């Protein structure tokens, strides 16, 4: 059987989707790590 030759678009979309999901997931974890450090408040001086 013959198919339209558009496999490159498929590969691109699959990469883009995975990148977006992984980047968001990593970003979320980094933000949580930043926020949950024990001394987060001690080092955070609003008057500085």
């Amino acid at each position, binding site marked *: *059987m013959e*198919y*339209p*030759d*558009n*496999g490159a*678009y*498929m590969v*691109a*979309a*699959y990469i*883009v*989707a*995975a990148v*977006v*999901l*992984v980047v*968001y*997931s990593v970003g*979320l*974890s980094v*933000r*949580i790590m930043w*926020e*949950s450090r024990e001394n*987060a*408040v001690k080092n*955070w001086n*609003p008057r500085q």
Partner: protein
Amino acid sequence: MNPRQNAVRLNLKGQLITWVALLGLAGVYVRALAFTPIERTQGPAQKIFYLHAPAAMTALMAFALTGVVSIFYLWLKDRKLDLFAASSAEVGVAFSVVMLTTGPIWGKPIWGTWWSWDARLTSTLFIFLLFVGYLVMRGALEDPRVRAQYSSVIGIMGLLLVPFIHISVYLFRTLHPTPIIAKPSAPSLPQEMLVTLLISALVFLLFYVGFVTQRYSLGLLRELKHEEAARGIS
């Protein structure tokens, strides 16, 4: 157990779910790419559908939940509801990015154009932009109570905006008919394709639960930090 440990523990649960979802995504990729037949008229690009459609469904579900939970916030004034609404909105924006990037990549080979102003695409674009605005506004408000009230108002209004934008685009199209374009025939999807789509939808749902749980615990940690800081100043 103190609230901080609670939040951290909740995040671990979320992280676990996210990891399972990531494994599931790998499974979906293997199944969709290697074990699902190629559609005859659209070719391999049709397989983008297995990511695009679940991402779209999850994003819209996320925004709808933000809207519905916002109604409950205005009624019950529970700050947990506000935190959930905000988490769901942010995760919805992330899924919208998947939807709005995979959509044009599918559209180029199938429709012949990267972007088409079709009703669904247009309404999701505007609702995406509105919720980006929602998140920006949250960032520009300091008082948590005011922020919660205002966010709920935007969330509820967004819920009612969707049908209006949808009808607008529909009316616009009927005034300016466009050539008939190939569309995936969803109802007559063969069983193998349908199963792949359903698995993918489940994986995206799992991502949603994992992400929202993590984002929710991030919100809890931020609240705690502000409370501690407020105590430290006074």
